[in-house]
């Protein structure tokens, strides 16, 4: 059994919470005490039917205001797969939450209401999923029951979305007509839409192929922690612990350590369960090298002829996540792989309108939930790749050094 991470976006009106509630309910991932509590809450609110949306609306503040304030994580499993759902609210002020949820997602699920068709926010969600390089996108055309399960309504929305998607860099797009409330095409194919020949949503989620989405070409091993047991048994032991960010490493491989540039060979790849022949993304392992060279946290092990950029000048798309805007000239702490440094904003090249994709070249700041193209200068070289090539060596966060808040998320455009 493997694991699929999915991010969902949409507003309450699209029926997103109902859809997730339905997936949890139909895979028997909700429990009777949770159902009882939802039934009780539905009765108290005077709802006509059991409001499955209440299964996912968590905090008291949210229930009272009928809103979702943050990313919530849900879990369900079928015999084939375990699923982690990052459930994010869809309104524009929650761009940062969707960016957060999408950063680790294998698949993004976008909902539209069949009666309303594509909205500005559907396009925004698709754009953000692409920006975060989520490999698979699913558009659920929901509330098909309210349009009489009409094929032409579905086809019109599908055509419109497909045309829009062509402008984006979407790897894999699937469009499914559903009714989350009734359960059409959620777990099994719906008899009400015999014209639809594709898979049910759950069937698609169970079978979408994600193993090849990781970068298995470029060897990238950010050194996280140096293991040196102070014990007699392991007197000369030195191991470099970390999580593989890219490529496949094997004992005997000739490797280079950056930024020093020293070459050496992998002596062994170890885990607490014993040595392994190969390490690949996202395994946490310990690498031992044949030569005693100085390697520490923040360094990167890669192949001699395939190295990331080593640069203090970073060109990146930045999503701003803080109330205090970002302006050129400001300095922040930057975290990238296992490296920490400081970064100065040299230049804001443009701010992107996430609805129209229009570039505002005159912008002089990025406010909360804005996305823009930024040039940074860092105090130490970053060892980075283009984000599209590797999310884990191309993504970074900016931290305000006085408040310690995480204020921005960056995706490297070009690494020179």
């Amino acid at each position, binding site marked *: 059994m493997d694991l699929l991470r999915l991010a969902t976006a949409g507003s309450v009106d699209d029926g997103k919470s109902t859809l997730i509630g339905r997936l949890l309910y139909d895979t028997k991932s909700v429990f009777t005490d949770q159902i009882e509590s939802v039934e009780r809450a539905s009765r108290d609110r005077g709802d006509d039917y059991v409001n499955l949306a209440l299964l996912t609306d968590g905090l008291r503040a949210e229930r009272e205001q009928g809103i979702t304030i*943050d990313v919530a994580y849900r879990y369900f499993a079928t015999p084939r797969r375990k699923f982690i759902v990052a459930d994010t609210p869809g309104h524009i002020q929650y761009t940062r939450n969707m960016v957060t949820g999408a950063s680790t997602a294998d698949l993004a699920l976008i909902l539209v209401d069949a009666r309303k068709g594509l909205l500005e926010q559907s396009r925004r969600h698709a754009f953000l999923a692409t920006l975060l390089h989520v490999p698979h996108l699913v558009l659920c055309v929901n509330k098909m029951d309210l349009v009489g399960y009409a094929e032409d309504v579905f086809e019109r929305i599908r055509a419109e979305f497909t045309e829009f998607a062509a402008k984006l860099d979407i790897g894999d797009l699937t469009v499914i007509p559903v009714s989350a409330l009734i359960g059409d095409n959620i777990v099994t194919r719906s008899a009400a839409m015999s014209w639809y020949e594709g898979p049910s949503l759950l069937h698609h989620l169970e079978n979408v192929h994600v193993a090849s989405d990781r970068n298995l070409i470029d060897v990238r091993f950010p050194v996280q922690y140096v293991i040196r047991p102070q014990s007699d048994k392991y007197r000369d032991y030195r191991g470099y612990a970390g999580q593989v960010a890219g490529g496949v490493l094997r004992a005997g491989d000739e490797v280079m350590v950056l930024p020093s540039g020293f070459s050496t060979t992998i002596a062994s790849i170890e885990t607490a369960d014993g040595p392994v022949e190969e390490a690949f993304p996202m395994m*946490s392992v310990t690498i031992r090298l044949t030569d005693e060279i100085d390697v520490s946290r923040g360094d990167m092990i890669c192949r001699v002829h395939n190295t990331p950029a080593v640069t203090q000048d970073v060109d990146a798309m930045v999503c701003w996540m803080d109330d205090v805007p970002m302006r050129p000239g400001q300095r922040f702490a930057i975290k990238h792989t296992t490296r920490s440094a400081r970064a100065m904003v040299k230049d804001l090249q443009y701010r992107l309108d996430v609805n129209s994709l229009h570039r505002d070249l005159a912008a002089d700041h990025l406010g909360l939930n804005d996305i823009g193209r930024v040039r940074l200068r860092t105090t130490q070289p970053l060892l980075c790749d283009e984000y599209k090539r590797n999310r*884990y060596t191309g993504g970074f966060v900016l931290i305000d050094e006085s408040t310690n808040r*995480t204020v921005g998320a960056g995706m490297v455009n070009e690494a020179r």
Partner: protein
Amino acid sequence: MSRTYQLTQLQTLESEAIHIIREVAAEFERPVLLFSGGKDSIVMLRLAQKAFHPARIPFPVMHVDTGHNFPEVLAFRDKRVGELGVQLVVASVQEALDRGFVQAPPDGTRNRIQTPVLLEALEKHQFSAVFGGARRDEDKARAKERVFSFRDEFGQWDPKNQRPELWNLYNGRIHLGESIRVFPLSNWTELDIWQYIAQERLELPCIYYAHERVVFERNGMLFAANEFCRPRGGEETFTAKVRYRTVGDASLTAAVLSDADTVDKVIAEVASTRITERGATRGDDKFSEAAMEDRKREGYF
């Protein structure tokens, strides 16, 4: 592991947790791991052991001891700590009661008064990062909490003021007096925990497996009749085959009827159960929809 270079769900969760634990060890001066002898903290301790192998775990473990313990669990705690050669810090609720630092609520339960005792111990030992075994599938409030959960100088969680977490990057920067609660098991479910216990052949306190026990029924739950929890008028005691799904304060934790006396039987039972872990076994979470949210805001685990 096959040539498709795909990890199983347990391998993915294990790798993620090890990454989180190493990140904390690399970035914090004084981390501590909360270890109660319960199954989640046993799994967490195992992951910490794996993260630094063959070196020892480079931080101490701490138990917030309510004084209402199952003796089997306490014995297990001491045994496991001895095997790993880690330092054990005990923050005692009884001792805090004795010196008047906290007052016992009228019902005698000690869950809520653990919080000030925990916070005092963190301050005394200057622990800045605290590993907890909480999982997001346990409760609606936990579903929204970060892996690195920022706490102010009062240990309080503010759900509206959480740091975004992207990729595998965690922001552990704090000012003096503030702290981070770290939850490496955030993405694990109860079933994942049990499958991992089976895979790793982890030993657990015996009360997690079905056994005969003298119990009585209260609020639809089965409580063991012991020195901390006595039946009141009208509550009849009887012997039943039970096991514990969670192990907490012995005055609050209920048992469930079960024949599952091996790990495989427990996995089968957990896979088919229709009641959440906390709903089935915790007398303290039933009272209010927002019970956990309120406790976390006060500085609870």
